[in-house]
């Protein structure tokens, strides 16, 4: 597992990597995580419960937790790790992580096979997209398989990185259903609509700001509970002030992941107004906690839940109000059973299942014949008149650098890991 984004940071990707690793460990695989260091405390090698080894590579961080693309300077760090841990597969995560991309680039020197998981959607026509898609295309050029979290994300990644769709797998996210147990609440007239989201433009806060007062005006027994923080917080505060809804719209501010359930159980409807979403783990957590979900029909969201557990709205104000009205009617009629919803989500998504499906990907790529260096160079040069040549040079220099490293730090001098941590042995 290689990714820039990992503990002690918190977030969807970090959580995904941790849980997937732990489940792979449980199934008897050996997992090592490589991420950048978090000075001054998180440096060197750390062990996480239950026996997950994390290498913190001391390379400088550029923005929002991602390292500067280094290409060559990462090789002296990753080489001893890969060798001493006897790695056979590199699994990179997140397209904005340069660690993941570089590890995939270097893998062929060690005969290691590669998998890449893409967690997000990118537009193909904005500046971020244009810049990062070329980087991604270069990195995934020679990847053995890619994993996306939804069918929409898969189409997006195939287009962005110019991949053969048959090497791209769709494996959704999952959640630990036990952490999102619904709570039996005494019947009451008040209906609470919960929103938990980063308060940013992409999360559709404008829609929330426009529709919340209208819903409050139409239904005197509806309350809003909004968790999260961000640049659009001020808009929400102004809206609340303007419509005098201080007693009906509660803004709780930033919520840590462990508190999400405590917030969710206070409501009956979950509203998601995102404008783009690869998967939508937030609404899955809400559905698991027994809330009825109302969401905008964007990205991979329509794939996540069956039609009877969710109401969709187009991303416009009237439709959001309409969908909420429908949801309130369903709740009032008592047609939604939280405990049944919980059981259903539990049967749909589990980490055991996801891990098994990921294992299938690993097995598939081990069966395939590796791409030889000549094919790699050839494919790299096809990237484009400029990028192709740049990446071709990087590839060739990388190979030469590798031989220098082999000569300067011979493999015999590396301290190999001889005995692995064995969970079964530990529990004896």
């Amino acid at each position, binding site marked *: 597992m290689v990714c820039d984004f990992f503990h002690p940071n918190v977030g969807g990707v970090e959580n995904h990597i941790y849980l997937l690793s732990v489940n792979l460990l449980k199934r008897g695989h050996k997992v090592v995580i490589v991420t950048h260091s978090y000075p001054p405390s998180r440096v060197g090698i750390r062990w996480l419960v239950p026996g997950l080894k994390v290498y913190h590579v001391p390379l400088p961080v550029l923005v929002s937790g991602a390292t500067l693309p280094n290409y060559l300077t990462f090789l002296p760090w990753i080489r001893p790790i890969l060798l001493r841990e006897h790695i056979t597969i590199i699994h990179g995560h997140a397209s904005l992580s340069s660690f993941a991309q570089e590890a995939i680039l270097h893998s062929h020197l060690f005969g290691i096979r590669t998998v890449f998981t893409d967690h997000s*959607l*990118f*537009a*193909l*026509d904005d500046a971020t997209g244009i810049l990062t898609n070329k980087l991604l295309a270069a990195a995934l050029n020679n990847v053995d*398989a890619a*994993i996306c979290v*939804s*069918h*929409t*994300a898969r*189409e*997006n990644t*195939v*287009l962005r990185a110019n991949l*053969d*769709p*048959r*090497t*791209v*797998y*769709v*494996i*959704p996210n999952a959640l630990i259903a036990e952490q999102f147990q619904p709570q039996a609440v005494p019947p009451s007239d008040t209906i609470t609509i919960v929103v938990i989201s980063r308060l940013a433009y*992409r999360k*559709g806060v*404008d*829609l929330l*700001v*426009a529709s919340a007062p209208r819903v409050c005006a139409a239904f005197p027994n509806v309350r809003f509970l909004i968790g999260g923080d961000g640049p659009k917080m001020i808009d929400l505060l102004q809206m609340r002030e303007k419509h005098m809804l201080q007693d009906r719209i509660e803004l709780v501010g930033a919520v840590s992941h462990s508190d999400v359930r405590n917030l969710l159980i206070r409501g009956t409807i979950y509203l998601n*107004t995102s*404008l*783009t979403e*690869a*998967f939508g783990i937030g609404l899955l957590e809400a559905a698991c906690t027994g809330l009825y979900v109302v969401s*905008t029909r*964007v*990205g*991979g969201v*329509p*794939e*996540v*839940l*069956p039609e009877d557990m969710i109401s969709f709205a187009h*991303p*416009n*104000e*009237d439709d959001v109000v309409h969908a909420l009205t429908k949801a309130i009617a369903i709740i009032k009629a008592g047609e939604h059973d939280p405990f049944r919803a919980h059981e259903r989500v539990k049967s*749909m*998504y589990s980490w055991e*299942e996801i891990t098994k*499906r990921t294992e*299938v*990907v690993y097995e*598939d790529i081990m069966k395939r014949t590796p791409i030889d260096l000549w094919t790699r160079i050839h494919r790299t040069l096809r990237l484009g008149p400029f990028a192709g040549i740049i990446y071709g040079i990087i590839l060739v220099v990388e190979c030469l650098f590798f031989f220098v490293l082999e000569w300067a730090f011979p493999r015999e001098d590396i301290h190999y890991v001889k005995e692995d941590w064995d969970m079964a042995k530990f529990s004896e």
Partner: protein
Amino acid sequence: MTNTNTAISRDEKDWQRVLWKRLPYPDNYVPPTHFLASLRKNANFTPYTYGPLVLASTSVCQHVANIFIFLSVFLRLKEHTSNPRFIVWLAILLFCVGYVTWEVLLYRQGGTWTRESRSRVMRSAILVFLALLSLAPVLKTLTEATSSDSIWALAFFLFTLHTLLADYTAPRLQESRERLTSVLSMNAAISAAVVLASRLDSDLSVFALVLFSVQMFALFPLLRRRLFSTPAMFRAFITGILSFASISLMSAHSSMAGWIVLSALLFITFVAPALLVWAQRYKNEIRGEWDVAVPEVG
């Protein structure tokens, strides 16, 4: 990218685009008809046509012609082939002509223009005139110590900036404030005039040059945006006059310079739009469900 999947010959009918149900297909199954079904190419794309592009590029042409006219005035002042007094009178005449045109255009658009605002314009015009007159000795010595090579390079850089940042668009309705870039553009051009002024040898020449630059780079762009409401023929006529003036003035210095200006202006007006029209064949805008939706808020 072919959507043939020979390994799986099962009927695609029971494939669904869902994640919550485990389907009897491997995770890398490519559904032939569903895969990328929502992809739309060049959905909201209206191709440019040559005629309107040529007309739109006349703004750029006028802008560049202006710079060359200014450079010619500078050279004439530097080489004492023009009398600075004549340039000052020319600037005043240009101001009056421009102001009358402005008023006429405003009247045609039905704008209200009171006596008070007229007097305000006159007041500030006289104020700028006097301020420049009194500042001329200062402006002359401001960058005198800098070597001429640096001055040429700096002026070239500033004029490039002026051309790149200028606002060539038609004014939109209810647009009260000017864009930051157009203000920067104006400042770059005035700075260029100030650094060039330090190469002149009399205070009166400096005053004439800076006054002329104010007409050319601060007031003319305002008028140019007003001109968008006039018929296309009139704008083409103005462009023709400015182009002719710049070419003839520059070729008086050297015929080589004249040819350069001529080819530059022809390229901007006729070749560049053709290139843009031609390049549209490579336009490939891809849209799909992953795009960030645009919220409609009433």
